[in-house]
C-alpha cells in the first residue's frame, strides 16, 4: 500500500485537485493530525449534457515513523439521472467494488475487488463520464460466485 512523506502527500492532493478540476467543482476537506481523512468531492455539472455526476473520494492516512500510510479508501462515482454508480473501496479489511448498472439497477451492486490507485480510479470515472466506457457491471463477478 502507498506510503508517502508529508510533502509527497501534499503534492498528491494538489495533483488530484488539478486533475479533478477538469470535471467540475472541487471541494477538498482535510482533517488535521493523524489519522488524517481527506475527502475530495467533485460536482460534475454535465455542462449541457444529459448526465451530471458526483465523485466522492475518501482516503484515510496514518502517520507512522514520519511516513504517511494509506490505510483505507473509498472512491465513488454516482451519475444522475441514476441509479448508476461505480466505486472502488478498501476498508474493514477488504477490497470490493460497487456497481449499479443503470440498465439493471435492482441487481446486487456489491462485488469483490482489488487495490486501485486514486488516479487510476479517476481515469476509469472519466471514461464513464465522457462515454468512452458504458456504465455497466460487465466483467464483475457477484460476491456469491466467489465465496
Amino acid at each position, binding site marked *: 500500500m502507498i506510503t508517502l512523506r508529508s510533502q509527497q502527500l501534499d503534492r498528491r492532493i494538489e495533483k488530484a*485537485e488539478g486533475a479533478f*478540476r*477538469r*470535471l*467540475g*467543482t*472541487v*471541494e*477538498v*476537506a*482535510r*482533517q*488535521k493530525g493523524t*489519522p488524517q*481523512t*481527506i*475527502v475530495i468531492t467533485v460536482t460534475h455539472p*454535465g*455542462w*449541457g*449534457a444529459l448526465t451530471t455526476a458526483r465523485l466522492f473520494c*475518501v482516503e*484515510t492516512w496514518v502517520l507512522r515513523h514520519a511516513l504517511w500510510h494509506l490505510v*483505507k479508501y*473509498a472512491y465513488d462515482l454516482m451519475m444522475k439521472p441514476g441509479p448508476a454508480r461505480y466505486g472502488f*473501496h478498501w*476498508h*474493514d479489511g477488504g477490497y*470490493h467494488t460497487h456497481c449499479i448498472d443503470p440498465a439493471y439497477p435492482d441487481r*446486487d*451492486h*456489491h462485488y469483490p475487488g482489488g487495490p486501485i490507485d486514486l488516479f487510476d480510479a479517476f481515469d476509469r470515472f*472519466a*471514461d464513464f463520464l*465522457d462515454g*468512452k466506457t458504458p456504465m455497466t457491471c460487465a466483467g464483475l463477478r457477484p*460476491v*456469491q460466485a466467489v*465465496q
Partner: protein
Amino acid sequence: MTQLDFEKKAFYTPGEISSLLHVHPSTVRDWIRTGRLFACHLSERVYRVPLGSLMEILGEHEEVVRRDLSPVEADRIWGEISNEHRTAAARHA
C-alpha cells in the same frame, strides 16, 4: 480573466477549440500532445476536450474549495461507508 461567449457543452472537438480560440488546428494538437490542454483519447486519432479543460486554458476554471474536516465528520463518513458494506455483506451471508 478571458471573457468569451460560446456554447457550453460537455466536450469539444479539437476543430471546435481551434475555431473558438482562433488558433491553427495544429496548435490545438500541440497543446494536447504536450499536455497543456487535457483531452480524452477516444481512439488513436480522436480526441475530445472537456469544457473544464477549455475553461482551464482560458483561465476561467473553478477554484478549489478547501476546508477542514472534523474528526466527527470523518467518523460519520466512514461509518456510513462501513454500514453500507455490512448491509451488503449480510445479504450474502
